[in-house]
């Protein structure tokens, strides 16, 4: 149990002399607080597994330091770091029973037998493995094997953090939901810091209190699911989180107005000091754009198709060269494909070179 600080941590798989732009993990500094449930979210190859392996010590960083409760543990081996990690594919020890598998991390650390038994029983109960405790682990299904792996990650009560590297990849969707809520419950019961790597936004948003979004070796935003949804700090976050993703369209922004395709959209805040050379875009989530019957005052667009997602409908529309996704309000009927777009000014954000610009009120 510890607070984990990363100080200017960076890693390159081709050594420290490589071009900093090619680093698998570009320098980051951040703090993971004790007892937090974190998700590291990002597409494949964005450096999230590298970051995880740096924390657990499987990979040694090219630069920077990792502190547990203020103590530098960068040079320590994985064994000495007091950290647990669960991998993408189940790892089980073939010759052992389920119970022996769960006891293995404790046995290796010389925990007294009575304590091991109690702890193994506890974890088996939490993961519904009790009936299987005396069975050979190899005879079980992939789901059950991954539960054993999870159990081995959770069995030590003194760990600084439990790291999960896309642990539910091999699990059926049905069971995925159960296991994820189980992990969430375990997090509350066991008071452990958990870091959960995934490329699945639903998984990240349902598991974590704090979601850290990574892109191209950088942390682009970390915040609560609501923050990521309502105020993406980077166009990548807007695009990656939400389905469909955020509308990001080049625009001319001046004061409280943005111009797209010769039409003006009102903004909630004033943007005066925008950098001149930067690429200026506005971003707005489809949930905050309504399709309305064409009328003066609304951005005019052509509807290309309407996607029915069950509870909501999203229209794919085109404004000049730009494409938008917009919500179709109940009762709207498209006539001839022409439509107007009504924006919610409070949720229209301005991005300069992909980064959010805070306007002045």
């Amino acid at each position, binding site marked *: 149990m510890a607070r984990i600080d990363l100080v200017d941590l960076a890693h390159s798989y081709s050594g420290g002399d490589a071009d900093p732009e090619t680093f698998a993990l570009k320098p980051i500094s951040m703090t993971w607080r004790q007892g937090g449930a974190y998700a590291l979210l990002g597409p494949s190859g964005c450096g999230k597994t590298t970051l995880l392996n740096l924390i*657990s*010590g*499987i990979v040694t960083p090219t630069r920077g330091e990792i502190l547990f409760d203020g103590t530098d543990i960068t040079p320590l*081996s*994985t*064994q000495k770091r007091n*950290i*647990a*990690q669960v*991998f*993408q*594919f*189940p*790892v089980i*020890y*073939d*010759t*052992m029973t389920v119970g022996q598998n769960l006891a*293995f*991390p404790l046995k*290796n*650390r010389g925990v007294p037998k009575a304590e091991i038994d109690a702890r193994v029983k506890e974890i088996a109960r939490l993961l519904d493995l009790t009936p299987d405790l005396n069975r*050979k682990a*190899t*005879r079980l299904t*992939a789901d059950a094997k991954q539960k054993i*792996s999870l159990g*081995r*990650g959770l069995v030590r009560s003194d760990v600084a953090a439990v790291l999960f590297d896309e642990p539910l990849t*091999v699990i059926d969707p049905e069971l995925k939901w159960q296991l994820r809520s189980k992990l969430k419950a375990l997090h509350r019961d066991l008071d452990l810091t958990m870091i959960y790597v995934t490329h699945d936004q639903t998984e990240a948003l349902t598991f974590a209190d704090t979601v850290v979004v990574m892109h191209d070796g950088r942390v682009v935003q970390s915040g609560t699911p609501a923050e990521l949804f309502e105020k993406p700090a980077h166009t990548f976050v807007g695009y990656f989180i939400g389905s469909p993703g955020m509308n990001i369209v080049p625009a001319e922004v001046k004061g409280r107005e943005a111009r797209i395709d010769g039409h003006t959209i009102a903004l909630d805040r004033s943007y005066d000091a925008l950098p001149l050379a930067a690429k200026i875009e506005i971003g707005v989530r489809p949930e905050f754009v309504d399709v309305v019957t064409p009328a003066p005052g609304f951005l005019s667009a052509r509807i290309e198709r309407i996607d029915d997602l069950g509870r909501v409908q999203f229209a794919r529309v085109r404004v000049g060269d730009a494409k938008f996704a917009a919500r179709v309000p109940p009762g709207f009927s498209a006539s001839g494909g022409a439509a107007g777009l009504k924006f919610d000014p409070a949720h229209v954000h301005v991005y300069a070179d992909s980064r959010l610009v805070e306007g002045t009120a």
Partner: protein
Amino acid sequence: MDKTVNQKAWFLVLPVFLVVAFSAILPLMTVVNYSMQDTFGNNQFFWNGVGWFKELLDPSTDLGSRFFASLWRNLFFSAVILAIEVPLGILVALSMPRSGWQVAACLVILALPLLIPWNVVGTIWQIFGRPDIGLLGYVLNHMGIDYNYVSNDFDAWATVIVMDVWHWTSLVALLCYAGLKSIPDAYYQAAQIDGASRWAVFTAIQLPKMHRVLLIAVLLRFMDSFMIYTEPFVLTGGGPGNSTTFVSIELVKIALGQFDLGKAAALSLCYNLIILIVCWVFYTVMTNAGAQRPRQEGAA
């Protein structure tokens, strides 16, 4: 659903059947035929029934005593070289590099003894061990060890065993190395996370994962060592006395030395049967032990 019966398919099997008949079944039947008869040359044969088999399995006769003596010798030899080569092969495989140019270098060096013809191996060790001109024999004798594989039983045995270890440990090592390479990195990483010691990694991960290749290695090494002929024949010729006369050497002595075709045929049939039975028992036991822990699905 009705299946159409088409007997023409048998014609496709016919060529294989003919080849097998001429290459295996007919020679085997000839041996069976010989084992029931006695001959004094001139292609004259006399029916002897199971006489040769009775004599062979009765240790009080000359044939029987020679057969059993060489059989125990041979089993002892197989046991010794398995006890040395399997652990040594595992050890070599464990200490081999996992990546880089060293891997290729190690593989080539390990494969070298396997590529040398068996009678050449015998000749190499025959010369190597000679007290007058052989490096090994000369050095040992000058160190004050009275080493002479031609006159001393123990020295002859030691030389044959060391020669076999030199020749075949590579095979076990290469098989084990292949088994080790197929273990995903995640297992080692998980073991690190779980705080496993080097020994625990070996017993909990590496040994169980090598289980299948080890089965093959032990089986191959047992069969090969039980049928060994060329190397000891070239090195010691079965001597001094009969001390390194293995079953195959005895067989050749009877068949070609004394030209007792009936006795030799009976011996070779029993020899064959022993190998088949031992391999079958061995394989069944090992695969049943494996059935307790069925193969990995997914990652492995």
